Each structure stands twice: as C-alpha cells, then as structure tokens.
C-alpha cells in the first residue's frame, strides 16, 4: 500500500472563529498592557518572529519547495503556497522597485480582521496584523535572508487595500550553509 511521499497529514479542523477571536483577544490584551501603539506593534512583531522561526520548518517539511533563485520567486512562494497553506488566502504580488528587492503582498481578504470594524479611537497607528509581518520576517531569517516586513497600507486604517511590504536586505552569511532558498 504505497503512499505518495507528500501526502498532507490530516488537519484536525477547528473553528476558524476561535482562532480569529484568540488573535483579537491577544491584540486587545496587548492594547491594555501597553499605551503606545509602537509598543504593541513591536510586541506583535516579536511574537510573530518567534512563530515564524518555527513555522518555516513546518512549511518546508510539508510543502517540499525547492531552492529559489530570486527574491520574486520567494515572494511568490510566500504568497501562493505559504499564505494558502496557513491562512487559506492568496495575496497578489507586486514588485515595487527596479532593483527587485522590494515587493508587496496585496491581501484582498484577511481572515484575522473578520470581526474588526475599525481601530479604536486613540489607536490609529496600531498595525492589527503585525503578527503576520513578524512571521514572515522570522521565516525568512531562518533561511538566511534578512528582510524588513511592514504594513504599507491597512484597510483598518482607512486605506483601500491591505498591503504588506517586504524589503529584502543584504544577504546574510551564507558561507557555511546552503545557498538561500
């Protein structure tokens, strides 16, 4: 009874609402704990970083993507494979500059903000989904790519779309390890 090598394990389904509510509770608690928006954003990013460093192994183990040869390939994979695998959405990718190291992911649907209408008063610079930025940053760093990931536009702040910007910085030391993903 041969089994294809890349069969996905059964994912026990849980209610997506539970996940969205948990995230919301997390952000709400952070807002209570910290007065400044920058602090909340920073902690969300840190948490996301910790998640990203671990999630990347799970992603690589299950998706069997090979080595990428360019930043645009990497961004495509993040958008089409990783986001699809973990959030069920597929953001579109655009390249922002000619030197090909700044990209944007445009999310038309973001499950994390399903129940959020608008940011509370006094929290106008809160990046609600900053966890995602941290996750992407942590994941890229584990494959030896330094990147800056921020929200360029956010529907919650009144912009028309939600846009995550990824700027790849100079490559880290890759002498000892395999070439970048």
């Amino acid at each position, binding site marked *: *009874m041969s089994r294809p090598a890349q069969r996905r394990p059964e994912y026990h389904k849980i209610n997506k609402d539970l996940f969205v509510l948990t995230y919301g509770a997390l952000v709400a608690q952070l807002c209570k704990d910290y007065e400044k928006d920058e602090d909340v954003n920073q902690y969300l990013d840190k948490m996301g970083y910790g998640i990203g460093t*671990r999630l990347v*192994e*799970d992603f*690589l183990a299950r998706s069997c993507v090979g080595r990428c040869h360019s930043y645009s390939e990497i961004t495509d994979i993040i958008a089409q494979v990783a986001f699809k695998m973990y959030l069920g959405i597929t953001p579109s990718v655009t390249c922002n500059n000619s030197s090909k190291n700044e990209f944007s992911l445009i999310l038309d649907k973001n499950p994390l903000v399903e129940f959020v209408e608008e940011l509370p008063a006094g929290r106008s610079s809160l990046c609600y989904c900053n966890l995602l930025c941290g996750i992407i940053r942590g994941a890229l760093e584990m494959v030896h790519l330094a990147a800056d990931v921020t929200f360029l536009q956010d529907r919650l702040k009144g912009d028309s779309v939600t846009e995550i910007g990824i700027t790849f910085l100079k490559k880290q030391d890759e002498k000892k*390890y395999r070439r970048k993903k």
Partner: protein
Amino acid sequence: MAIFSVYVVNKAGGLIYQLDSYAPRAEAEKTFSYPLDLLLKLHDERVLVAFGQRDGIRVGHAVLAINGMDVNGRYTADGKEVLEYLGNPANYPVSIRFGRPRLTSNEKLMLASMFHSLFAIGSQLSPEQGSSGIEMLETDTFKLHCYQTLTGIKFVVLADPRQAGIDSLLRKIYEIYSDFALKNPFYSLEMPIRVTLLPPRLEYNGAITAHCNLCLPGSGDSSVSASGVARITAACHHAWLIFVFLVETGFHHVGQAGLELLTLS
C-alpha cells in the same frame, strides 16, 4: 535490513538528538577461570582485549559486563578497578561479556560536529556553487544518509546498505521534528530535543516489523552548553506521545524497496 541510528545536528554542528536502534551486536559472554588467557589493557577509560582473540572475542572488544553486571568504563559496578579485580584469583571463576565498545555521548557529540565540518567542506569543494553537501556516505557495513534542510538543520540516518527508502524517511523525520519539537512552545531552537513524541508508524512493505521507540524524556529545560549536549534517552516515561521507527529485527525481508509511511490514528 535496518536503521541503525538517527542523528539530528543543528546549524552550529551541535548534536541535538540521537537515537541508536541497532540489534545487539556480536557479544560474547564466557566463563573464565584463573589465569585469564586473554591479555587486557586499559585504553581510553575502557578495558580492551589486546591479545588472545578466540571464540567470538576479538581484539579491540571491550569488557562490557562482569558476572552479569555492566561495568562502568574501567570500574566494575561496585567501584573496583576491573583489571585489579580480574588479576585476583579469588574472584574466579568469573563470567565476562565482551563486545564492541559502545560510543559514549561525548564521542557522539564529537562525531556529529566532525560530520558537520566535513559537510561544510563538502559543499565548498563542489565545482558548482550551491551544492547540497554530503548526501550519502557509503561503507560496506552501513550507509549514512544526510538531509540538510534549507534552514541548516541536518538529519542523519545510518542504515543498512541494502535499505532503501531512506530519503522519504528523512523527509518524514523532518516533518515530525517540525511538528513535535518546534511546535512545543517551550522548546528553544537549537537546543537538545527533550520531548516525547507520538508515533506515525512506519510500515515496511506493509508488514509490521518490530519497532523501536524513539522517545525522549519530556521537559523543556536543559542546562546545556550552547553547542548542545546529546542526551541518549534511557527510559521512556509513560508517554503522551511516542515516536516510533520501525526497525526490522529478526525478520528476514526479501523485499523490494520503499519504506511505507502510514499514519494510524
């Protein structure tokens, strides 16, 4: 055909997980009377046979147990020196077990870091850039398969040279590592893995063969050095998760290749 060992090496070359699962090696236990007709010598904190090879006891074999009790390096279980003990005619007749000395944890650590260096050299030697590094090391008694992930962790499996399907085994180990080590929030990356895992059972050719438990005492903390200290698991506690490798012991398989992976609920 069997899997002999599994090693997981972190990015810095430190061994973070190790499992030995080979069937008992050739060991010989015999009763001796005074005087002992083998010449024993002390080497590297072990008592080895230097001369007098016979009957399954070969030069280089170490004294593993005296009268059924495992020796502790050069000392018996009671704390007496082995050579002294065996030099005293009053202790005879004595039953001594000889066998190939087992690797200590420190030796395994050293081997892992040496392999890590060799791996790095291997990648550098490649005529083309972006080489994958050492993927297989072959000898007449075993094959070493190595899989390095894109993040730099290496999974090394030592198996019988005829055993096939190790590639899928390595991928599966990677998946399990990502599941059980990484998703544990109290596990710090690059540290030795101390988690008891759940088995996805590996079936070889559909026939269930004997399996060996790969389990690690659970606990997230460890007082270890930065490079990682290997802890060979001793006992398996009542596991909330156990990781199982199927290893063929005593079953003769004239089978074709392919490790089958089956997840049983």
